[in-house]
């Protein structure tokens, strides 16, 4: 792992003149979480630099710093060899650095021309907007990007792929020399990806530097000139594209993740605790079928992992089971109770709890203390004659803090003072306090460090051995294999395959999820060469 930075230094010394943007010893701290730990990173003119790394490895944080969204806690940026400080995104755009976020930042109610020039309108001498000139430039940009979109078309009438092109056009209109793309293909069809790649090659031929982030490993390797791998806030490897393959990327990404391995835990399952029978979930706004006829039984004492890419319908399934979203078809049994028509509180009371994916948005009450966060879902168990019995509540909280091992100054400390891993333990602990029969967790280890990940899984396996049924979602293959009794792979709203973690390989799972196209075309070839090395 220490080899990484050394390699980076070698490359930089030989190719110095091509480096347009250099991040020197950048670190970033959020509260007590260290998202970046002194990273050195280079972006080269006319090249595509691809960033690999699992969720929470630090890629997005670095991109936020490069695009002026966040300021680094330590280190500095050099643009064309000069030290710069980017105070805002506008600042970054003015210096030629543009970012295209995964969630597109367009105003759907405005047309293409207005979106491209929003905030940087071209003015006539009178001070009025020069729509004619804006339209002409938009027209030229669309021709350059070979996308026949009329400047007057409303963005809401465009397909997602076309909207992405508009975002790129906007960056080009701002004379972007460095273009950062965060998961640009996640919403694109295969043909749209081809168009995008062609656009990227045109851009690099014109000297634009591209920074590219994707979970779709095969795709990313295809477009890469340089590969950079992040793990736990460190930049662990830099390599030229011709020297890498899928196996190398996976090995670098997961590194020493075998810190925990629960594959040998005893398996003594009880009865079916949660029975999902042909469940279909349609998104309320769009009517898109997010979960399509999914059936799955989870037994008491069993830990089932649902693996899949973003948008595979995993989160939608969990939220529908928890009672936040409507289930439009099928039925769900918790033990013998049908969950139809029951609200979230009733489902919690019956013994079904959800630890949501987005801890800050859905998991924590930020203005409350650790203790009050812990007791919230089970508060009614501390109530007598309409009043909260403080002693009961205090005892419950103290027991749970010890049980899930939250490192805190005490129950009276603010929840925001805890590290990500400890906040997550609180979110899990508060659901455990409701004495659930089934606990669902959506990306339970997202954005927390390796040590805390191991602790959270040992906690789950301990509870499972006492009879808790666990259903969790992950996008980390290594986690799926080392911390589950059974792996379910979802893709495009359906369950596509089931694996036994003791016998399956990394590539088999990735191929089933649609993550690596090449592997699915020729599974044997890749599985043999990479998965074993990666697991070591």
């Amino acid at each position: 792992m220490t080899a990484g930075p050394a390699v980076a230094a070698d490359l930089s010394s030989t190719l110095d003149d091509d480096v347009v943007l250099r991040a020197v010893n950048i670190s970033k701290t959020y509260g007590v979480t260290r998202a970046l730990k002194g990273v050195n990173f280079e972006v080269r003119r006319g090249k595509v630099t691809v960033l690999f790394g699992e969720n929470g490895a630090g890629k997005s944080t670095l991109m936020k710093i490069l695009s002026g969204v966040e300021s680094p806690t330590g280190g500095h940026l050099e643009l064309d060899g000069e030290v710069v400080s980017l105070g805002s995104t506008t600042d970054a755009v003015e210096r030629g650095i543009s970012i295209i976020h995964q969630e597109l930042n367009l105003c759907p109610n405005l047309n293409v021309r207005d979106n491209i020039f929003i905030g940087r309108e071209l003015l006539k001498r009178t001070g009025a907007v020069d729509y004619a000139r804006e339209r002409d430039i938009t027209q030229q940009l669309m021709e350059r990007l070979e996308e026949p979109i009329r400047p007057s078309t409303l963005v809401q009438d465009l397909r997602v792929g076309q909207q992405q092109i508009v975002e790129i056009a906007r960056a080009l209109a701002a004379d972007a020399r460095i273009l950062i793309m965060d998961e640009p293909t996640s919403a694109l069809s295969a043909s749209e990806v081809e168009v995008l790649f062609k656009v990227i090659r045109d851009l690099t031929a014109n000297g634009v530097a591209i920074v590219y982030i994707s979970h779709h490993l095969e795709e990313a390797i295809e477009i890469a000139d340089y590969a950079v791998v992040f793990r736990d806030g460190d930049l662990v490897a830099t390599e030229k594209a011709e020297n890498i393959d899928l196996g190398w990327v996976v090995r670098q990404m997961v590194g020493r993740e075998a810190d925990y391995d629960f594959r040998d835990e005893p398996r003594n399952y009880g009865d079916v605790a949660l029975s999902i029978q042909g469940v279909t979930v349609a998104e309320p706004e769009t009517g898109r079928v997010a979960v399509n006829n999914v059936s799955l039984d989870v037994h008491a004492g069993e830990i089932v992992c649902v693996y899949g890419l973003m948008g595979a319908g995993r989160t939608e399934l969990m939220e529908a089971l928890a009672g936040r979203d409507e289930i439009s078809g099928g039925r769900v049994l918790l033990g013998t109770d049908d969950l139809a028509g029951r609200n979230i509180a009733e489902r919690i009371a019956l013994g079904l709890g959800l630890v949501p994916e987005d801890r800050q948005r859905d998991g924590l009450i930020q203005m409350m203390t650790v203790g009050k966060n812990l007791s919230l879902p089970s508060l009614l168990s501390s109530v007598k004659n309409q009043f909260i019995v403080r002693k009961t509540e205090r005892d419950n909280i103290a027991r749970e803090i010890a049980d899930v091992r939250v490192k805190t100054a005490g129950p009276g400390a603010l929840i925001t003072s805890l590290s990500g891993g400890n906040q997550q333990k609180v979110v899990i602990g508060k659901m455990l306090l409701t004495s659930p029969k089934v606990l669902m967790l959506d990306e339970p280890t997202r954005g927390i460090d390796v040590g805390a990940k191991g602790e959270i899984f040992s906690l789950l396996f301990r509870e499972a051995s006492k009879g808790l049924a666990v259903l969790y979602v992950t996008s980390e293959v290594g986690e799926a294999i080392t911390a589950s009794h059974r792996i379910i792979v979802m893709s495009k709203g359906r369950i596509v395959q089931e694996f036994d973690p003791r016998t399956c390989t990394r590539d088999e799972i990735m191929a089933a999820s649609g993550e690596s196209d090449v592997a699915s075309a020729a599974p044997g070839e890749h599985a043999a060469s990479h998965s074993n090395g990666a697991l070591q």
Partner: protein
Amino acid sequence: MSTTTTTPAPAGAGPASSTKPSARSLNLNAVLVEGRALIALVIIIAIFAVMSDNYLTAGNLTTITKQVAFNAIVALGMLVVILNGGIDLSVGSTVGLTGAVAGNLFRGLDLPLTEAIMFPKVWVIVLIAVGVGMLVGWLNGLLISRLNLAPFIVTLGMLYVARGLTEVLLNGQNITNELSGEAALGNTGFFETFASRPLGLPISAWVMIIFAILFSILLTRTPFGRWLYATGSNERAAQLSGVPVKRVQTRIYVLAGLCAGVVGVLQVANISSSTADLGQFYELNAIAAVVIGGAALSGGRGTVRGTIIGAFVIGFLANGLVIVGVSPFWQKVITGAVIILAVAVDQIQQMIQKRRVARKAVANAKQANRQSPTPTGANA
């Protein structure tokens, strides 16, 4: 493995051990936020006491307290709404409406289908009037929680509706003479009860004290109170924790209506008439009291104590300005400036607090760096 922790939590703090220090520092913070209002109150009193001999007299203090009480009671209702992240602009009109309802009931109810006119007893009149206030609140609550309408819009609309109904009920005439009732009709005793001064304090002050205690218990000792703070801070997370967010949202507006109804009755007794403009701008005074008392308009933060102090700040200020003879025009300018100042100081205080936390985190991270340059987590 717990010994080589990289989490810079205060060292030595075992899981369930010493809860005292953090609890105390938290209280200190709360005291500072509320203390700001208290300090303002002391300064205001000191300034006016120096400027006028008539300020700190028993008579004037009683007058102030009576006025403060009306605002404070409405503000308590406003507090629960604001804690939830909502706003209720209709409470002033509701005060007027309940006052008009009470006044009308003293004139007697024309029973349909019969020739009889019913004269309800005073306690029935009070119950009906307060009930009307709660009904208005309940309507607000239903529209906001079930139809997901914006509180600002719904209660703005209700501000007009309730004021309009007040004017309809009064039909352009104040009700003054009928309010003492007639012994023959059995509806006497209104002023005797609601304009009395038990133990020398006006009845409105007593109601304020009782309401403050009840609301304080409600907010700190009941699940409803906890749910209120939780929903105000993060509604999505509260909902996923099983908090009945819609029910909470409906009930807070009922509480606001209840407070407005009580003030409506008390005010009618106080000014011995039902008038069409009764309660005008009460909503704004109430919001000001809540905000000066340290509550966040975005929800999740605020206390009964702070709100009461906030109401006293406004009351003492308004009265003082009158007593020292500041022109009514300038009174408004000064009151407005004090409100903005209170919120600005609050904001600055929070910014300083945040910066301090960030600095501490950085220092902690640096220290953790020194202790273990390559953090190896737990080996489970």
